[in-house]
């Protein structure tokens, strides 16, 4: 028995008699044939592709946005500054004295004074409340000192110490370390990052299901073909192959459409964001999908499509047996 089986496979197994280039050629043919099949039903192929594209564009877009926000906050890290709001009764002269005193502090790199008059002037220009301000008897705004610590005092712990020390000054009404909200911001982006990962997993799963379901329908449509191929001695691998390529194509095209959607969205956002950045005196520019991210997106989506069709084919191909 053993011998007869061996003889059988030696005689008619395709691998033993096939050269590698013929095998590769077959794969190329099957890949192109399944591509052709997709193109012959353009509307349904396009819809499936778009659904996959949207499912992938959401996490890809959020990932990109998060990356941009992180580079933005990266710029702030070194620039931890302490704002000192002085008491109302402090005169401009006293404020200037305090400024020069702090300038000599070895822990401080630079102090910028925004006097009450300057603050009022700026407020008058930007707020549009000029008339209201004129009717006030006195200036309601305090003087503000923006203290920029030296590099080694910008780290969280020494910055806190410096903050405590500056609070001791009698002129200071209220002192605030801006680092704090940078830290909070970092904590928030970490949560957002986790959220993007969760969202990406869920939507990746949905791509798997979309492709799986599409391939399942395709298998049903080609029921007769599968049955006849089994009748004439087609192996499961042979029958599986076009469906696997089909799933991979869906994944790849879904990935490309996701990339297009994200890129177009970025183009639409670019101008308003530039304006916003201009208002904050920042040269911030939205960065798009880089080459390596694009490769990751396309590779990942192709693998997802392949996996989805693999699941569908594994489940449904064995159900079709010739009778």
């Amino acid at each position, binding site marked *: 028995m053993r011998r007869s089986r061996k003889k*059988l*496979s030696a005689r008619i197994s395709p691998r033993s008699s096939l050269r590698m280039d013929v095998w590769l050629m077959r794969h190329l043919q099957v890949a192109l044939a399944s591509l052709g099949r997709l193109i012959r039903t353009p509307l349904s192929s396009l819809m499936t592709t778009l659904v996959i594209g949207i499912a992938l564009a959401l996490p890809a877009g959020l990932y990109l946005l998060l990356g941009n926000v992180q580079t933005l906050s990266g710029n702030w890290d070194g620039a931890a500054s302490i704002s000192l709001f002085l008491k109302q009764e402090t005169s401009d002269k006293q404020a200037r004295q305090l400024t020069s005193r702090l300038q000599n502090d070895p822990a401080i790199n630079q102090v910028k004074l925004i006097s009450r008059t300057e603050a009022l002037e700026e407020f008058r220009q930007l707020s549009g409340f000029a008339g209201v301000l004129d009717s006030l008897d006195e200036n309601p705004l305090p003087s503000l000192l923006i203290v920029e610590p030296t590099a080694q005092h910008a780290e969280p712990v020494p910055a806190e110490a410096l903050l405590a020390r500056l609070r001791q000054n009698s002129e200071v009404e209220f002192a605030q370390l801006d680092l704090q909200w940078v830290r909070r911001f970092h904590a928030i982006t970490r949560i957002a990052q986790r959220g993007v990962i969760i969202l990406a997993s869920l939507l990746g799963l949905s791509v798997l299901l979309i492709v799986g379901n599409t391939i399942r329908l395709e298998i049903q449509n080609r029921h007769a073909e599968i049955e006849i191929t089994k009748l*004439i001695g087609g192996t499961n691998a042979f029958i599986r192959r076009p469906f696997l390529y089909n799933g991979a194509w869906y994944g790849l095209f879904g990935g490309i459409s996701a990339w297009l959607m994200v890129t177009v969205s970025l183009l639409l956002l670019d101008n308003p964001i530039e304006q916003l950045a201009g208002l904050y005196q920042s040269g911030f520019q939205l960065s798009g999908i880089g080459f390596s991210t694009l490769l990751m997106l396309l590779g990942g989506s192709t693998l997802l499509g392949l996996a989805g069709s693999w699941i569908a084919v594994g489940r449904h191909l064995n159900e079709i047996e010739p009778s």
Partner: protein
Amino acid sequence: MIHFDNVTKRYPGGHEGLSNVSFHIEPGEMVFLTGHSGAGKSTLLKLIGLLERSTRGQVRVAGRNLTRLGRGQIPYHRREVGMIFQDHRLLYDRTVFDNVAMPLVVAGLGHIEIGRRVRAALDKVGLLSKEKNLPITLSGGEQQRVGIARAVVSKPPVVLADEPTGNLDPALSREIMSLFEQFNDVGVTLLIATHDLELISRMNRRILVLEKSRLARDSAAEVMT
């Protein structure tokens, strides 16, 4: 070439498609299988093509014990058994050429070899001029000949036919039968199921008769005794 030893096929529910059937077919024989509808002709052919497996007994084809053949080996077995059906089982969205080429594509032949063999097979059944047609544009007899070309294109040692002339008029039936005789002349073993008694009586070949799932008559045994 085909050995049945006490083969029984019982379907779920207890109905027996075949009961204790034994016979041998030598290489190069051309044998007719006949009997009423439901007598078990199709079941017998399905056991040979491994569309079904026997419940009891042993089926051997071309030296292989089908009872013990694993699932993974079934496709390789089917490549050695050409099957022809009453309903042709063609793919109607593909040309005649592509239909006939299927067994060779499945076996992984290069496309030059495929073209050569497909045209030889189509020439044999007289349809070379229609290789680019879709099967639906052909007559019933022509479609059956496409099915025959597909069954023999890979030169299998065994060819099975289930009611190949079922829907054809006598003249076309004779044409199909003479095709089968030509294949038999070059050494192909044929087993043809039909209930066209008039046709097979003229052919003067071995006849197996199934009756109520049992082998009721084997003309070869009668000659010997």
